């Protein structure tokens, strides 16, 4: 079987304000007909740039592409614009990471699919529309004939991705390039989409190039894996060998950093029984969407009760819309519950007026998800960390500086860099600053809202280790909110599973992950991608039976 994609010595340079950035350096690989290749790497590895190059999408941008890129017999660098245009969408199609921005908001989904179909065939409008309905149906969108006229923003995230895949399918391409197709989706939806792609490949014999940062996603969906770092190929080979017995140090480190559902966990010994530091009693949070009087009511949190025991790490896991972030914010009183009670050390804080609450503010702190927006870009990190102390009345600059530097050291940053600005730090470092700020008032309860979701895998591992370390150092009680089941398992003593604003199941970590009782928990765990390709195949088969 011949190769559908053949890349030799690919080099991609980007011209930026600061100079030339080399995104890809001398990359070579092949993709055989009907086969699946996964390109795996962290941010800055050059994997997306590579994917875009396969469709010639760097043409006319400020990127220069050198080397030999051959797609289905056509050498892209030497081809004319028209030749490249004819390939795109019809022989090789691409699915992007964010379907909401990838689809045109001004046209219906059906219109866009039909347009692509007509661009490559001489089909009539009616035939193109029929084809649109056909592919939408094939990707599992119910009532395709009706929904073909819907607009992208009217679909849910998963359905939008299906629609994008439908568009890719419409002209029956031989190669599908998927650039992080499931990164923005919930884990259960992710499993569905990946299963769908697998199904379609089996049916049509399409080759697949899957670009992802998630090794486990690659494991379950490709034959061969190519690991990239800094624009270079680090390791390449069959999925089994690369992922289970990596030969290169980088790959080994990468694999080791990934939190796994099946890896052993070490638990710090906890004194028991511990009494509750915080009690959440039948708490509700209702929002109104749209106008104040007539908008629909949204029950973000719908009757949640749980205890947070002193000294423990409680994991709160759920998909998007589960209400976990709303709950987290209520715990630190950034939001006031619509009804219900929250007791902190016996005090009722859910309805406490702000003035009295101020005294307690120091005890309840939060670490936020987005390293970009969690720090004020116009203030130095030293100021950001010192501010809570200033609010409390501390005005002696020397004292403040000493405390700031102490904290910086404790979170693993250079204390001399206290007068730098956030943009001078990486994402992981910014998260550390956020943690330092949260700890400066010596809180008793630290709620972490998706603190590692925006970070690379290797950085994730570091920050998680840091949190564990600080937990003992500062004698913290931790509430860890996340959607990533494996990460939550690694960090928590007890876990609470949320869905649609309610607690579905809770229990000791080992118990819950080993023997889930609620069907939702089971489906969540079944959907998590695993690193072992053989195991992944089995789980897919099981999912197919359900």
């Amino acid at each position, binding site marked *: 079987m011949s190769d559908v994609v053949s890349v030799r010595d690919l080099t991609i340079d980007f011209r930026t304000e600061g100079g030339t950035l080399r995104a890809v350096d001398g990359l070579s690989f092949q993709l055989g007909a009907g086969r699946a290749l996964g390109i795996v790497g962290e941010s800055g590895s050059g994997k997306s740039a590579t994917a875009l190059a396969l469709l010639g999408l760097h043409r006319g941008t400020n990127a220069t592409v050198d080397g030999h890129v051959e797609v289905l017999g056509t050498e892209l660098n030497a081809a004319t614009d028209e030749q490249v245009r004819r390939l*795109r969408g019809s022989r090789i199609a691409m699915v992007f990471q964010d379907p909401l921005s*990838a*689809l045109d*908001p*001004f046209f219906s989904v059906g219109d866009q699919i039909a347009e692509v179909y007509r661009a490559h065939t001489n089909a009539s409008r009616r035939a193109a529309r029929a084809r649109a309905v056909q592919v939408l149906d094939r990707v599992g969108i119910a009532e395709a004939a009706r929904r073909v006229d819907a*607009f992208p923003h009217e679909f849910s995230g998963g359905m939008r991705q299906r629609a994008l895949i439908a568009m890719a399918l419409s002209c029956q391409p031989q190669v599908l390039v998927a650039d992080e197709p499931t990164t923005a989706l919930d884990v259960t939806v992710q499993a569905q989409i990946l299963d769908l792609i697998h199904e379609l490949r089996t049916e049509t014999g399409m080759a697949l190039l899957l670009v992802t940062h998630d090794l486990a996603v690659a494991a379950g969906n490709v034959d061969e894996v190519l690991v990239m770092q800094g624009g270079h190929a680090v390791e390449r080979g069959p999925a089994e060998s690369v992922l289970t017995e990596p030969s290169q140090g980088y790959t080994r480190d990468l694999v080791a950093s990934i939190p796994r559902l099946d890896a052993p966990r070490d638990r710090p010994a906890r004194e028991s029984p511990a009494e509750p530091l915080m009690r959440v009693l039948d708490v509700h949070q209702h929002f109104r969407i749209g106008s104040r009087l007539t908008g629909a009511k949204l029950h973000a949190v719908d009757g949640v009760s749980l205890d947070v025991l002193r000294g423990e790490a409680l994991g709160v896991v759920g998909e998007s819309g589960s209400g976990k972030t709303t709950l987290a914010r209520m715990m630190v009183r950034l939001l006031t519950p619509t009804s219900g009670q929250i007791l902190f050390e016996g005090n009722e804080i859910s309805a406490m007026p702000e003035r009295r609450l101020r005294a307690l503010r120091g005890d309840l702190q939060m670490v936020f998800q987005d390293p970009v927006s969690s720090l004020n870009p116009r203030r130095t990190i030293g100021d950001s960390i010192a501010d809570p102390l200033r609010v409390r009345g501390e005005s002696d600059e020397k004292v403040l500086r000493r405390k700031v530097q102490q904290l910086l050291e404790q979170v693993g940053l250079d204390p001399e860099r206290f007068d730098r600005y956030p943009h001078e730090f990486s994402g992981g470092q910014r998260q550390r600053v956020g943690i330092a700020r949260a700890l400066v008032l010596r809180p008793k309860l630290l709620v972490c809202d998706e603190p590692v979701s925006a970070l690379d895998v290797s950085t994730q591992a570091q920050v998680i280790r840091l949190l564990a370390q600080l937990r003992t150092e500062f004698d913290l009680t931790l509430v860890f909110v996340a959607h990533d089941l494996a990460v939550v398992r690694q960090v928590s003593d007890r876990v609470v599973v949320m869905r649609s604003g309610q607690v579905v199941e809770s229990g000791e970590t080992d118990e819950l992950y080993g023997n889930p009782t609620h069907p939702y928990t089971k489906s969540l765990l079944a959907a998590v991608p695993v690193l072992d390709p053989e195991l992944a195949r089995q789980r897919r088969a099981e999912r197919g039976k359900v």
Partner: protein
Amino acid sequence: MLGYVVRRLLGAIAVMLAMSAVVYVLFYLMPANPAQLVCGPKTCTADRLAMVEHSLGLDEPLYVQYWHFLSGLVVGRDFSSGPSVLHCPAPCLGYSFQYTEPVLDKILEALPVSLSIVIGAALLWLTFGIGAGVLSALRRGRWLDHAVNVVVLGGFAVPAFITSLLLLMVFCVYLQWLPFPSYVPFDEDPLGWAQNLVLPWIVLALVQLPPYVRLSRSGVLETLTEDHIRTARAYGLTERRVIGRHALRGALSPLITVAAADIAAVLTASMLTETAFGLPGLGRLMVQSVNQIDLPMVVGMTLLIGFVIVLCNAIADVLYAVVDRRVRVA
């Protein structure tokens, strides 16, 4: 969609009511002697003054006066004093005692002139403005882009009335290519109508162009960097479709709102142009009324213009919702 339209209209009406209240307070309550002002500080006679005072109901409580004012807007009003009655049909924007005519009538007289100027110029600046902006975005960095930039900057920096003066000087006095503008009604002599209006059209268009050029240019440039344009290209659509069908829609929809909000600026600029060219439109009417201190005239015109602006904004919002369906949920 219907709900959105209704909400917008109700909002517009609320704003118009508020505006009428503000206008009324400012003009009829603040001046020391509104009756004198209404009657006409220069042309007033004693019994006319009495009639004015009575018809304005100045001895009545505040809210009653305002109520008469408002209801006059809807059903018309009669100004009377003893035997003589001056009838002001609906919608009554006021009665000018100096012209002895309802304000609306005088406005309608001057309207065709102003409309001719504005519409003609609008066609000019919309086509050239948006066209230039789009073209310069597509030919970025090349001479066309730079040339357009210069024109835009120049147009913006020179106020309408100055451009009018300069153009008058050049084309009517020195080169003598065009006659001195005076208004010729369309139905009398279409060619003469156009000839006389060419200069005002150019002047107004030049003044109004710059924001459109700039916005359409930046709109196109920004839209071109968006993901869905990349998708369109990734799926092999021709460049013409990518730009014509996908990029332009996103780039130009915001212009609708801008165009509507611009109405205020348009009316202002056209007033100045009319004055500079001496054309008998609303602009000149306004200036004359101000100079004569004809209060009902001034108030009536201000109110009408304000209403038109509010209405145009509401219509623009609705139009925008038609084009960009995501807005309807808001």
